[in-house]
């Protein structure tokens, strides 16, 4: 008897609680959603406003009551091109592409080496890498300027390529090392039993696994190099200036024209946005280690 009376409440009880819990969870979800939207809009709004302004006439751009409805125009973009953004864009592309390629070329073997068989000294090496990032760039700009000047490389885009490579290499090695560490050790051991030389192991087995990580690293390098301003403004002039330098020159030579500046800034941001968009697919793929586990 005791058994039969105790069963009904047992079966009812588990059925009852989930409903309020689900409600509570969905209420929390709504709140989190609202917060996410607020944060997202706060981040996106300045960018949105910049793009919007770039399509305005100067008179519309500088009103005390901000205008949302106006007649869009491409005039500002034409203005930017006629101001000569072309060579600056080319310089930025050269500095970004070549420095990123160099970083990958040097960084991949370095990261492989420090992750393959870590010993005590590896930690020191890694710290040495990252320690170069601890010194503010301002502190080294004078000696760099003197050196670059003496070897006659001022206002030369390849100077920036070298500097950007050095600037991004430590971060890239650190990032890629963490991806290399994710590769199961058995794969490397299997490859060595199979008789694959190290470079083949790296190229045929390891790199395909961590290619999303390499992409992410490359994207970071591209963004940093594209947006770098301090070296560029100090070491270049008319010949080797990059887009950020152009933007600044824009302000001083033309006065404060909001619409045109917005158009220039939008154009400067566009390549990075496109690079991010292209890499996105590769990044979202994630690291697919499922196959070996």
């Amino acid at each position: 008897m005791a058994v039969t009376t105790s069963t009904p409440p047992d079966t009812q009880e588990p059925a009852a609680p989930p409903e309020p819990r689900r409600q509570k969870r969905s209420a929390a979800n709504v709140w989190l959603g609202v917060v996410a939207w607020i944060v997202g809009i706060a981040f996106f709004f300045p960018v949105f406003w910049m793009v919007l302004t770039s399509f305005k006439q100067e008179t519309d751009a500088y009103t005390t009551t901000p205008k949302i409805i106006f007649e869009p125009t491409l005039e500002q973009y034409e203005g930017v091109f006629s101001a000569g953004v072309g060579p600056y864009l080319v310089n930025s592309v050269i500095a970004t592409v070549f420095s990123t390629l160099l970083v990958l070329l040097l960084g991949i073997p370095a990261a492989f080496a420090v992750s393959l068989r870590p010993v005590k000294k590896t930690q020191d090496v890694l710290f040495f890498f990252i320690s170069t990032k601890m010194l503010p760039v301002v502190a080294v700009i004078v000696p760099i300027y003197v050196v670059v000047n003496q070897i006659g490389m001022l206002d030369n885009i390849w100077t920036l390529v070298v500097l950007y490579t050095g600037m991004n290499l430590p971060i890239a090695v650190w990032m890629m090392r963490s991806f290399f560490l994710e590769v199961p050790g058995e794969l490397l051991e299997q490859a060595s039993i199979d008789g694959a030389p190290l470079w083949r192991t790296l190229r045929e087995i390891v790199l395909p696994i961590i290619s999303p990580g390499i992409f992410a690293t490359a994207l970071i390098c591209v963004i940093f190099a594209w947006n770098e301003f301090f070296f560029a403004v100090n070491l270049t002039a008319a010949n080797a200036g990059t887009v950020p330098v152009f933007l600044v020159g824009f302000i001083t030579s033309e006065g404060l024209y909001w619409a045109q500046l917005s158009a220039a800034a939008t154009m400067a941001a566009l390549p990075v946005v496109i690079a991010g968009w292209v890499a996105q697919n590769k990044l979202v793929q994630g690291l697919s280690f499922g196959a070996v586990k």
Partner: protein
Amino acid sequence: MAEVVFDQASRIYTPGAKPAVDRLDLTVADGDLVVLVGPSGSGKSTALRMLAGLEPIDAGSVRIDGRDVVDVPSKDRDIAMVFQNYALYPSKTVAENMAFPLKMRGMDKDERAQRVRQAAEMLGLTEYLDRKPKALSGGQRQRVAMGRAIVREPQVFLMDEPLSNLDAKMRVQTRAQIAEMQNRLEVSTVYVTHDQVEAMTMGDKVAVLANGQLQQYATPPELYDRPKNAFVAGFIGSPAMNLLDLPRSSSGVTLGGVEIPLPRDVSDAAGSRDKLTIGIRPEDWVLESTDADSSTVVKAVVDVVEELGSESYLYAHLADDTSTSVVVRGPGRVKVRFGDPIAVRPNPDALHVFDAETGERLP
């Protein structure tokens, strides 16, 4: 095909500390499947990795087909290994995975393809040759790893717990497949497992390791019937052998007030020891009527009954010594339940006797 010899082979991770593998002496006869078995930390995987060239040999030597391989890199040892997680190259297809070791050895494309095809047929992988490992089930991945080892036609197969990642049914099936294939190919094989059932069913010979030291190296029946020490006795067999520390009596030992006589040679070997470790396998108890005279049978109380259908295992504690537990095999559909009293008597001809201090078998 080759004989594999471990000759006093040692692996010492940190100088001064206990070696991971301590002066291992082991000979794998040509074409044999030898299983290294032991609990985790016993050094079985380390021993295998020493043979594979993935761990250095710090002392002693390892010989494959008479050749000392201490300074020979893995790829030149003519071995093939199957890892626990299969270590398939995720970016390569099944066919590419299997062909990779051949490609690295400079074999031409046609022969590669032919060997891969043969191995794939043998393992039932033909229709999966173009798939990536990601698109395979666990059992299929395991077979690809086997295939990659087979195509090499190496002198020795090394297998490091190749079945551990499979589900129970798949494991039993693959176990038989591996044993059958190894018999057919007659390639010397060293197989590492922590599962004593795998060891007993697959090995021509089994090496039991513990704490980096070889405990016993023998055929499965020999391990079961004459374990060399208490560790092997307790490790081989499921459920494990009952190992009881019992005081000596005039003609043998006493268990729960019952005199258990020991054979003449055993009691001679036991000498003046006042305590002995007695090993009794679950099937070596005889269930008696509970009315029997308590000077001839051991009384116990049942804690758990494991009913397996064809047989059952009774986990019980002694009636007059609750700290001593025993496992007794009974018939299937046994009528005993939790808390019931039982009476048991050990089969005197099937006793295993060990030194209570060292665990060594007597005599």
